[in-house]
């Protein structure tokens, strides 16, 4: 069990001249037993950071500690980690069973039969029990991914590193895997770093979320913090699906003038804005109301596309008075009859609005939550505290 500390870690690829900075001066303190989820756009350095923790890449600058040991010079073996590689990296010449037992054989003194038992039960859990004698080449993509995951979870290491371990699984399987991983992690109390692109995984699995962009830390916090209290426009836009809608505008005398509508700022917003003039308004698709009738502080929109999702639909609308051709998304009930070309009035409650400094991207005003929600939000992540 181990705490992980990253101290000003930077990783560059390539020659100094045209080096790619994959991880940029990241400092992070992960408590023993914590489950941390890394999110960020593709290419933002998540895998690189993981591989640095694993000892597979040597950081260009900075220090990595596992427990209290400085591990800069230690190889992966000495760090005692288990990892799910984004590209699986299964051993092609070994069967599924051999793939999964390899780590146990290498890192423990368990007897053959104990290993076989553990592997069998892990495989069973992941629904690949019947495939134990197959070679990886004979498996479907999702089955391969489960082998890769299985190879990691049969072990009892200091740290779990999981790089998108569920990306090729169907929703149902993913849901059950999610639960299993959480259960296992709780049971073993192993510090876990987890990369995902899946909003559900990001929101539900981890104690804390680490948001990266261009190799830089954007925000570290509980999932709900990141969702409700994004540190900047990037995080606000990145967390939540569909993304938050942003409207850039100018603030003058308490009103934000955006392209296509004007929005009267509330008292608290005004004080947050201060004397900034370039301000971006952000509101999530699910926080918009579309109504047939004109409403105060609302504006008229034309429906561009309706994307029915089943129980909900995404409606892409365009402010009718907008000078250019950009739409934003609104979430409505799946059974509500909205068709393309309909004209409606969009409105968002002042409590649901975020404001960002257009230049720096900093959040200058957060939305208001109900008191209960505030309270939930303010709770420290359970696991990080308890362990």
């Amino acid at each position, binding site marked *: 069990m181990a705490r992980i500390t990253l101290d000003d870690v930077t990783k560059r690829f390539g020659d100094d001249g045209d080096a790619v900075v994959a991880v940029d001066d990241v400092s992070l303190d992960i408590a023993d037993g914590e489950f941390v989820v890394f999110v960020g756009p593709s290419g933002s350095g998540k895998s690189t950071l993981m591989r640095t923790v694993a*000892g*597979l*890449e*040597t950081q260009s600058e900075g220090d990595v500690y596992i427990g209290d*040991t400085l591990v800069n*010079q*230690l*190889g992966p*073996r*000495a760090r*005692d980690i288990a990892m799910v590689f984004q590209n699986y990296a299964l051993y092609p010449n070994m069967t599924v069973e051999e793939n999964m037992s390899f780590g146990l054989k290498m890192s423990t003194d368990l007897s053959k039969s104990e290993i076989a038992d553990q592997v069998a039960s892990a495989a069973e859990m992941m629904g690949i029990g019947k495939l134990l004698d197959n070679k990886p080449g004979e498996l479907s993509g999702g089955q391969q991914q489960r082998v890769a995951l299985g190879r990691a979870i049969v072990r009892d290491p200091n740290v779990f590193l999981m790089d998108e371990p569920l990306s090729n699984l169907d929703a149902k399987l993913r849901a059950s895997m999610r639960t299993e991983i959480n259960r296992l992690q709780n049971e073993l109390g192993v510090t876990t770093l987890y990369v995902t692109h899946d909003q559900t995984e990001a929101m539900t699995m981890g104690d804390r979320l680490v948001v990266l962009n261009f190799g830089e830390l954007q925000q570290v916090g509980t999932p709900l913090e990141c969702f409700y209290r994004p540190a900047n426009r990037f995080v606000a836009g990145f967390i939540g699906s569909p993304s938050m809608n942003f409207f850039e505008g100018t603030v003058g005398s308490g009103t934000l003038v955006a392209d296509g509508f004007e929005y009267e700022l509330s008292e608290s917003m005004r004080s947050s804005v201060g004397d900034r003039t370039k301000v971006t308004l952000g509101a999530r698709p699910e926080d918009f109301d579309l109504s047939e009738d004109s409403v105060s502080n609302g504006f008229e929109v034309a429906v561009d596309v309706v994307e029915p999702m089943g129980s909900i639909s995404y409606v892409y609308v365009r402010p009718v008075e907008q000078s250019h051709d950009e739409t934003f998304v609104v979430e409505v009930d799946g059974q509500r009859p909205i068709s393309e070309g309909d004209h409606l009035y969009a409105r968002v409650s002042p409590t649901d609005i975020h404001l960002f400094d257009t230049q720096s991207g900093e959040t200058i005003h957060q939305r208001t939550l109900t008191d209960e929600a505030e309270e939930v939000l303010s709770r420290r992540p359970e696991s990080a505290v308890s362990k």
Partner: protein
Amino acid sequence: MSTKTQTETTPNEQTATARLRDLWNDYLAYWFVAPMVVVMLLITFFPGAYDLYLSLIEEPTFNVFDAQFVGLANFETAFTLGGAFHSFVVTITVVVGALLLETVLGFFLATLVTGVESTRAKSFYRVLFIVPMAVAPVSLATIGRIMLNSEIGVIPYLIEAATPFAAPAFLSEMPLLTVILLDTWNWTPFMFIIFYAGLSSVPETLVEAARVDGAPLWRRYVHVIIPYMKPVVFVATLIRMIDLFRTFGVVYGLTQGGPGTATQLVSINIYEQMFINNQPGVAAAIAVVYLVLVVALCNVIIAKVGFEGVWN
């Protein structure tokens, strides 16, 4: 893997065996190359130094103090009376001709065999196509001579029986070509076997991707398969080239370098200087010049083709 400075020491386990194991693993690269380096030192340093020494003295003697150094006289003899230049030209002709044939043919055959569907037929070809390499040079030269003999050889006989053409006198009218063809028969297997193994490690999905991308068969080879197995192609060709440069046994048995000096390879020249003319100094001088040339050539090839192309 540039992470060789990493250690695998686990801080909390420090038994003697663990320390030993760490010593083994942390310096694995050194342990792994050490035996090779030792053997290489033994087999390159002394013979090389010896040849260099020989090339500079008048008469071979093992006491360096007795040696009469003659400067570059042996080198001069090598290039005047010794016919060194001519033998370089002959050697290069054979190298270029045979290397081309063997590489192309070896690859072609490896490709064809790879595509055979029946596993049994495949195994059969795989074994058969390697066998020519296993014929001892002496047997090949002796039996080859008699088979090629214009009067009593079976090959001219078959050519004349099966085609309207008169069989050429292989060894006297087209000695270089004959040498090249015989070497091709003999050593195409070398290329075949390495290419075959190389081909079988090309990921199938890459070939599939190329097929989906609409690449016809030959372009799959040119653009996807060969680039993927570049290192293997490069190494096989380089090694075969070097072996061809020093080829001796079969050619000597076949033509003894003749007619005249038409097939006087460098190796044959060195042999004659050493064992017939009893001119070890001249032989060594040729060997030294030759070694310098081949090393230089390989250096260029490895730098230009290897580091800038293949391993890049």
